[in-house]
């Protein structure tokens, strides 16, 4: 049943998100063309158009990322708390199965969004032509990482991938929790959800920073020779991963509790 629910949830999200991300790919192809053929555009006028394009590209990528989260939030709200909820909630499924399906589908699309935007930026701003101008090779980068941090660039990329995956899931869960909490308001439920979202994200950011201060992790940027920066950076990374796991788990438990016990259609 989880598989079936997941299939329909993905279909519902993909209807619009595929179109949004198709444009991300198109923009990446155009941007990559400009990056790799900059020699063709040497005139003042063509330079101006290229600058305008890259400005538009940056704005577009930001809008695409934001709209992905917004579409996921709207889809969750509509399927669980609007009139469509009469269908969703009366399916012969446990609430936990329905909710897990929403989490998986929302997280998967956020992850696809993250990967496509990352690849898009890599294609546009780190084309082979640009990298050769920077005179940097992958081997040189990985040697620097090994020297400074004690592990290779590949290990770092894997760590970033794990952190991003956990962060994506945690982020989606915070959106869902905000929407569920918003349903407790007697009026202006959507506005309430937005306010709760900003409240939760601000609180979790402050808490994260607050926890990092006594451990000295905030000293990474200060110029104190006695500090073991390698230890600090690695500890900070591990702390951020664990913090995302904790906030994600708490958000999941609270959201499911609210859906099961507290939110009425």
């Amino acid at each position, binding site marked *: 049943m989880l598989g079936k629910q997941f299939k329909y949830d993905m279909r519902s999200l993909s209807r619009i998100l595929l179109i949004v991300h198709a444009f991300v790919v198109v923009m990446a192809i155009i941007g990559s063309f400009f990056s790799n053929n900059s020699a063709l555009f040497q005139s003042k006028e063509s330079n101006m158009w290229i600058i305008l394009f890259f400005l538009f590209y940056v704005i577009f990528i930001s809008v695409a990322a934001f709209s992905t989260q917004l579409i996921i939030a709207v889809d969750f709200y509509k399927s669980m708390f609007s009139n469509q909820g009469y269908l969703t909630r009366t399916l*012969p499924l*446990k609430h936990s199965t329905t909710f897990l399906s929403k989490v998986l589908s929302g997280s998967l699309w956020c992850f696809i969004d993250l990967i496509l935007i990352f690849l898009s930026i890599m294609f546009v701003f780190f084309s082979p032509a640009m990298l050769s101008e920077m005179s940097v090779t992958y081997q040189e980068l990985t040697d620097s990482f090994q020297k400074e941090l004690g592990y290779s660039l590949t290990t770092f990329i894997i760590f970033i991938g794990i952190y991003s995956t956990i962060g994506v899931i945690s982020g989606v869960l915070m959106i869902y929790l905000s929407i569920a909490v918003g349903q407790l308001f007697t009026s202006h439920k959507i506005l309430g959800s937005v306010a709760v979202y900003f409240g939760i994200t601000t609180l979790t950011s402050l808490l994260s920073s607050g926890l990092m201060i006594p451990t000295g992790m905030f000293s990474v940027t200060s110029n104190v020779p006695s500090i073991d920066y390698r230890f600090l950076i690695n500890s900070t990374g591990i702390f951020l991963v664990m913090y995302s796991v904790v906030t994600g788990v708490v958000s999941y438990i609270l959201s499911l509790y609210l859906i099961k016990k507290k939110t*009425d259609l």
Partner: protein
Amino acid sequence: MNELLKIEGLTKRYSGNLFALNDLHLTLNGGEIVGLLGPNGSGKTTLIKLVNDCLYPTAGTILVNGNPLGPESKEDIAYLPDCTFLNESMRVNNLLNYYQDFYNNFDKDKAWNMLRDLGINQNARMKTLSKGTKEKVQLVLTMSRNAKLYILDEPIGGVDPAARDYILRTILSNYSEDATVLISTHLIADIENVLDRVLFLKQGQLVLNSTVDEIRSEKGKSVDALFREVFQC
């Protein structure tokens, strides 16, 4: 007779001490068409939503065919809310597949035939259909399930008399004899002749639970007349 629906001490209180339902006790057996009657705000929709796990009770218990509310009870109940509840971006044929995927007791062939008889384009998206046609699609999907308990919330409100006749014919011809149909309405005259039993709900409490025959023989009046008397403004 099997107890299809057993409700004990059901209460739903909203903020400000507003009791939509207050200590309601009700048992329904299989094989009846039951009218849930009451004026606006009497608690009919609240009761229906509670039985369908769309609201959470303040107190009380609900058992459907001996099971508490959950996947088993939802498999046994075919619920038609009083609003458009389907995903409007989906096509009619996709909705048939959706129902078939989730409900073991959904009869897709029956649904196909009913939609064809109504002349509804199965490739049409729900949002392109008129309000009345959407309601018919929803009714077809609901009545194409071989459920034990059909719960229809105001199925004939807001439609023309010809559509009302069609809806009532569909309901009567598509439910199995040992199933129960619970119809919530305040259009009693249109539905009285098909009902076996009536429940009168007043300010969240059950004030009458009687068969139609008992009302006519003991009180010497129609259900409509009794309703007007009980709920006189």
